């Protein structure tokens, strides 16, 4: 299975372990990720906060880079995914915008590749059956709550592959990995996202509520697919000590990634998840 791949800026820095484990998990599933050449930042919250047009145009360049390959584009970061998805939708539906972008950025839009999130690819292209078969170390005893964050499955008119209020696909993947998924009602409640450094009071309130809800539900860890959510939930805890994993880290672990690779990812977290994994004999 081949996809073009848009890693996003944080995959090399604050979400380093997300980037590396995404690559490892995809390799184990025979997903070939072809990184877009010379990709640029999507602008994240800051671009659309200062200029809606700049936000569309930055991601139009990304979409342009992928046209020649005529493959679906895999994106792991929900922020990048939403920005690029919005821009691709506009390129598809607004002819004047498409023509202008083709001229300004020098590409030809054919729209043959769609913008896809990893979770959608895992469930609908790879299949949970394959995930189950590739699992050599079932995550027995791990009781995660699946946290999707706010923008991964929204707006539903553009995403369309999961329920926008109570999504289920990550729960499915975790179950296929052998984890005992814990039910909870806060899968898409926002963590405070980009207010992390400028209004950290708000972020602490929202993120700590989520961590508390996870503990109330009886979870022993929280699983996310977002670098921004990970920082807010992992590094802003008020002593709850709840490990926060990336889904891809757990996939790597279950698919039998070398222990030293897993350790390299896990040591990046503020709340160390290794004692929990060791107590369950998963590490």
């Amino acid at each position: 299975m081949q996809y073009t791949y848009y890693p996003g800026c944080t995959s090399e820095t604050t979400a380093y372990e997300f980037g590396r484990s995404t690559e490892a998990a995809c390799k184990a599933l025979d997903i070939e990720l072809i990184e877009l050449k010379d990709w640029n930042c999507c602008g994240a919250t800051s671009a659309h906060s200062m200029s809606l047009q700049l936000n569309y145009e930055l991601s139009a360049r990304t979409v342009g880079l992928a046209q020649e390959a005529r493959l679906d584009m895999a994106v792991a970061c929900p922020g990048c995914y939403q920005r690029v998805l919005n821009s691709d939708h506009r390129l598809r539906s607004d002819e004047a915008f498409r023509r202008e972008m083709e001229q300004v950025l020098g590409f030809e839009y054919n729209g043959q590749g769609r913008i896809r999130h990893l979770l959608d690819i895992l469930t609908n292209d790879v299949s949970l059956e394959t995930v189950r078969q590739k699992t050599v170390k079932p995550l027995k005893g791990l009781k995660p709550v699946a946290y999707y964050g706010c923008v991964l499955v929204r707006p539903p008119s553009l995403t369309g592959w999961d329920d926008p209020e109570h999504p289920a696909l990550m729960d499915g993947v975790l179950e296929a990995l052998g984890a005992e998924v814990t039910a909870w009602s806060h899968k898409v409640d926002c963590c405070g996202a980009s207010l992390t450094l400028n209004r950290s009071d708000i972020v602490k309130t929202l993120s700590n509520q989520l961590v508390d809800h996870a503990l109330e539900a009886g979870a022993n860890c929280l699983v996310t697919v977002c670098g921004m959510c990970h920082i807010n939930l992992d590094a802003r805890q008020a002593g709850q000590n709840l490990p926060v994993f990336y889904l891809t880290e757990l996939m790597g672990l279950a698919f039998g990634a070398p222990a030293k690779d897993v350790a390299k990812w896990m040591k990046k977290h503020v709340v160390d998840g290794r004692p929990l994994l060791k107590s369950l004999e998963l590490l």
Partner: protein
Amino acid sequence: MEAMTATMTTPAPISVADPTFAWTIQARSHEPVMRCFYCQKCSIGCPTAFAMDYQPAQVLKMVQLGQKGALLKSRAIWLCIGCETCGTRCPNDIRINNVMDVLKEIALEEGATPAEKTVYALHRSFLNSIKRFGRLHELTMLAEYILHVPQKLPAEIGIGWALFVRGKVLHLWSAIKERGAVRKLFDRAGL
């Protein structure tokens, strides 16, 4: 019923401060703001409403009534994080985050001082980093941000340190080759 009628005063006629404002917002955001019938689902679901001066439904109502001055000076427009909860739940399909974004744009165009200075400072530093390198470089972005709002340093040094010791922010920038193309987009946006 009779008692109720007796205590009711004659309501003042609704005055629309700037009748063109709602249409401007509608045209720029592509969102049908006039459809809002004030069910308030957006206000109830908004994660940051507790910190806002006007709730999302109030913002829409103020747009309808042309209360431009108050909106451009509001905290609410800067505290919207674009989580899309409101737009997902709106029975009239108004993606309110797009409305909030257009309000911020107009505030900046018209020189209104952003009510949330630190939020604005972070966006500015973030975008400058992309303009410079084509991608985000966290260390220089953070340095620029702190230069603008040094008062935030004591509160954020802890998390900065926690990420620093884990090797998460100490990286060289990876500038893209076609920085010119990205700069061109910034020039087009006047940023």
